[in-house]
């Protein structure tokens, strides 16, 4: 059978390339991505980018206003806090700690949640019912409550708050993985793979997992924004990261004591959290609509 190859050399983008194209087409999403990239760079290269140490106190410059204010100093871009620590430095380290720990939290939650969810999704019968409904019930327990209990058992600290948030995030991943696995399991290509002789584990790794990446990316961004807000909230409530640690929520809570004298100590860390979360959400939104477009295409 002769093949005409007039249009063989044409470019067919792979699924991910198509997502990226659709994503790139949205200006807002790109702006969010750039902002997020800046935050990530801040987080990764914090020690190189910051002029001072995170806990370096400068006794001579307490509560120096940000540099754009009348009596601000150029050597402290965001001003200093009540211990004379450079706020810019602290905020950048804050990005590192908050974003970094949120990221770790999400990755751990994802690993656990996806395994459990896959397990629950492939199971049948009563065991599956239990595996299905238990995470759903857990999902209903507010993060703050879990955090409070963890703090009560293990004490305060960033790591403990990360565990709490991990626990709170896991059910989401379980839920989504499970419903995705269940719906994928009903699809014909799974039947085809089964006929090829694939066992459950092979089905999962070779057939379902590639289809799950999108869900994981989307859920991951959602979880990341939740994790950032929650870590900051726990830090703010003094249930998470403790004071000298430059965690954005803790910095904000520190700044609250000098709100009237140095409002930037509240405004700037808060603004940073907000922008961080906003950029994550915008990117997540962009990704979601890009994926949607790809599916609709």
């Amino acid at each position: 059978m002769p093949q005409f190859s007039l249009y063989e050399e044409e470019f067919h983008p792979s699924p991910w390339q198509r997502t990226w194209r659709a994503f790139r087409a949205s200006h807002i999403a790109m702006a969010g991505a750039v902002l997020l990239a800046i935050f990530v760079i801040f987080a990764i290269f914090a020690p190189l980018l910051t002029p001072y140490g995170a806990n370096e106190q400068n006794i001579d410059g307490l509560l120096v206003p940000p540099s754009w204010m009348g009596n601000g100093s150029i050597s402290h871009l965001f001003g200093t806090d009540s211990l004379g620590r450079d706020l810019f430095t602290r905020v950048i380290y804050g990005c590192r700690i908050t974003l970094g720990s949120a990221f770790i939290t999400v990755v751990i939650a994802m690993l656990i949640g996806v395994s459990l969810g896959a397990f629950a999704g492939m199971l049948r019968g009563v065991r599956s019912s239990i595996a299905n409904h238990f995470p759903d019930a857990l999902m209903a327990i507010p993060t703050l409550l879990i955090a409070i209990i963890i703090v009560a058992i293990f004490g305060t600290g960033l790591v403990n708050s990360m565990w709490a948030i991990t626990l709170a995030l896991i059910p989401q991943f379980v839920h989504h993985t499970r419903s995705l696995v269940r719906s994928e399991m009903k699809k014909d290509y799974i039947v085809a793979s089964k006929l090829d002789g694939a066992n459950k584990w092979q089905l999962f790794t070779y057939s379902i997992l590639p289809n799950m990446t999108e869900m994981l990316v989307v859920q991951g961004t959602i979880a990341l924004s939740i994790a950032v807000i929650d870590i900051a909230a726990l830090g703010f409530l003094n249930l998470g990261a403790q004071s000298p640690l430059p965690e954005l929520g803790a910095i904000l809570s520190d700044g609250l004591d000098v709100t009237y004298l140095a409002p930037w100590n509240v405004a700037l860390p808060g603004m940073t959290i907000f922008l961080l979360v906003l950029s994550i959400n915008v990117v997540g939104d962009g990704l979601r609509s890009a994926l949607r477009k790809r599916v609709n295409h």
Partner: protein
Amino acid sequence: MTDVMHVKQLTFLHNEKKRWLKRPEVFKLGPIELTVKRGETVAIIGENRSGKSLLAKLLVGAVRADEGEIEINEHKYLAKYKSKDGQRKRTHDIRMILQHSSETMNPSVPVGRILDEPLRLNTQLDASERKEVIEDTLVKVGLLREHYYFYRNMLSDGQQQRIALARAIMLKPKVLVADEPFAALDPSIRSQTVNLILALQQELGLAFIFISHNLGIVRHIADKVIVMEKGQIVEEGKTETIFRWPQHTRTKKLVTAYHSLVPQQTIR
């Protein structure tokens, strides 16, 4: 011609486990007796929801039967159970093309990986050998070697059908079962596919069991026709016999309906 497949007392009641406070769906299929010869083409026809697809799935083991035995190539399978090595052997012997070929392709996995799967799971070939086999098979079904790297979304319906075919014949089975392989295709692609299957059948000595509503094609390629109604085989026989002297009312209805569409005129 020798028999490649014997089906004895294949029965299916319902797969839905009885659940608390839930009425199980009841559909009874069979008992089915069936013999397929080497290189034979068997067509299954029947009304909607008569259990054709179900029968096909039972044959390949995609759905577990309640009773019965299938013997392929002198190897007996209890249709009721699905033992590990039995399944593997069966994969070598009998393969299926599912109804909607496009949905049987994983959208996130390139063609190469899809076709790799049966080889990886059922043979001892190493990666490069497998790739060679896959590329050969791609050529055999009328595609290009480059299609190895394509994703589902880049392929047309006909090409997808060919991939499904490639996947099915990759392990050189004795029996190929296809569920409405031509229904979703348009006329010109359909003819191509028919030709392809005919050629492959000749080349590999495949027994081909297919389900179709298109009696024209059935008449053209089938050696034997099976008519189903409500989970039972109501008539079975040589194609020409069925088309000319249908016995059962269901068969009669089907054949009449077909004839009423085909004008007794010929071109030229």
